[in-house]
């Protein structure tokens, strides 16, 4: 969220660092390193080192346990086991995340466009509307979907009446509710980057396009969309990555058949204490995300004008 807020805040003029350090700092080449040191030490110790540690763990002898201790046996078989046992959950995670990301894009784009281009004096109020839900505990908000989608409440009741659906129609604890929950939870991460890039759009460009006899649709396809592409890319990444690793929505709004890879990692780690397999699963997830992101970024990068 903040990347986005950040970019929109600085959308005016960005001042690149001077070719030479600003006067005063000129004789202190060590200064930037000193500034970086504490934060990077923290990230190195508690982000980078754990990654290495997790990787080592993923290669431990799977027959070890906390009591007997673990041995680094370069057991690449853990990865095979992880894929063999959980490829279903793994593919499901990527699929759910993909659908949720597309849904976020479809819902988020009109909202971001409405705020940035049509918002006028309501712009700030609408932005608050996007950010405000963040301040209610997200677990509680996700649980609230249980109320909304419950079998006997107005939403499902209304749908049943309008479409004359049978008693076996449910929304809660289905794939639909899990994906709807993911979409809901990560929608702001899509809207804010989109807003930031649409807000920078020069309205004169749209006028120029209209002036050159482009229909509104062509103006959108040929001017607005390509120019907002950076926002689309960062929005999809900020939605897809956390959605693929999420397990809260599957746990609270799903059923045993909607289990995602996150649920498996969590239970392997915290309930079963099968650390080697859980670590291997984490890296399989990372690799899966990385591959999808690379394919996506490459496509978005080369075919900029769709």
């Amino acid at each position: 969220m903040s990347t986005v807020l950040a970019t929109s805040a600085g959308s005016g003029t960005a001042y690149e660092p001077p070719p030479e350090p600003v006067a005063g700092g000129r004789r202190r080449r060590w200064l930037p390193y000193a500034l970086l040191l504490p934060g990077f030490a923290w990230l190195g110790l508690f982000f980078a080192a754990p990654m290495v540690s997790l990787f080592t763990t993923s290669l431990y002898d799977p027959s070890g346990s906390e009591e007997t201790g673990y041995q680094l046996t370069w057991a690449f078989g853990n990865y095979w086991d992880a894929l063999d046992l959980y490829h279903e959950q793994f593919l499901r995670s990527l699929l759910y995340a993909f659908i949720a990301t597309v849904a976020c894009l479809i819902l988020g784009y009109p909202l971001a466009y409405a705020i940035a281009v049509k918002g006028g004096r309501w712009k700030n109020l609408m932005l608050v509307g996007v950010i405000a839900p963040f301040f209610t505990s997200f677990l509680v908000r996700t649980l609230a979907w249980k109320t909304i989608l419950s079998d006997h409440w107005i939403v499902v009741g209304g749908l049943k009446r309008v479409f004359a659906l049978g008693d076996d129609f449910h929304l809660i604890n289905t794939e639909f509710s899990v994906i709807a929950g993911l979409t809901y939870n990560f929608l702001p991460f899509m809207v804010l980057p989109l807003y930031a890039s649409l807000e920078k759009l020069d309205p004169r460009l749209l006028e120029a396009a209209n002036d050159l006899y482009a229909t509104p649709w062509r103006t959108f396809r040929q001017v607005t969309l390509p120019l907002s592409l950076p926002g689309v890319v960062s929005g999809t990444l900020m939605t897809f990555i956390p959605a693929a690793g999420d397990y809260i929505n599957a746990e609270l709004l799903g059923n045993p058949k909607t289990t995602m890879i996150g649920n498996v990692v969590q239970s392997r780690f915290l309930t079963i204490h099968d650390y080697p397999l859980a670590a291997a699963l984490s890296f399989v997830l990372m690799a899966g995300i990385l591959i999808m992101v690379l394919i996506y970024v490459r496509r978005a990068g080369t075919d900029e004008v769709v």
Partner: protein
Amino acid sequence: MRRVGRFLARYWVMAVGLAVLAYMAAPVVVVLLLSFNQPANRSTTFLLDDGIHWTLNNWTDICGGSETICPALSTSIQVGLISTLIATVLGTLIAFALVRHRFFGRGASNVLIFLPMATPEIVMGSSLLALFVSAGVPTGFGTIVIAHVMFCISFVVVTVKARLAGMDPRLQEAAMDLYATPFATFRQVTLPLVMPGIVAAALLSFSLSFDDYIITTFNSGNVVTFPLFVWGANQRGIPPQVNAIASAMFLIAFVFVAIGQIRNARRARRAATS
């Protein structure tokens, strides 16, 4: 009918936008409603199937639902404050280095800052646990703070960086030209101007820390934060006070944001009228 058609053609984007906003607001509204509801039992805290049974009990007896609900809340606030303080200081220093200096490794540093934001929380949480387990560090309050600072730093850096990057470096030059030493320049010019960015970063850190479940669950040991409490209670039945607490958090934050917006608007108006 044609008028309606034309109206829709003109305003459909706004209409869709507002519908999406309503979708985003729906759970918050439901939580507010639930906070005034007396559920039949704890397994129906998140159900409104037979209408609302109005009550103020959840608000008047906000700690009453469970012996651990308010201690969990207080733990979350403590973790949030400490992590925010550390992450804001460390992240701000990094932002200064990245924006105000050119040095060997600047590009790589930017990538390193981006990585934690692009890593699924479950991987960060589990890897940190793997480290603590292999290093024999017992998990608890301290490890929660360590984890929270870790994932908040990047968000602080990008927020402060944006503010700094939008700041004219000539202002610092002007201060130095007017006899301000580097320290005086920092205190009287740079810091006040970057402050809104730092405050925004701190608020963001606090809300991220306060609301984190996934990473915390890996590194909490026996300590229970508010999200952990909600999760745990969900298995046994959630006390309805949870909705009152969530609503209160929302209302407090909303008031803060609204005050900020009003102040900005007033400042803009004052600047425009003179």
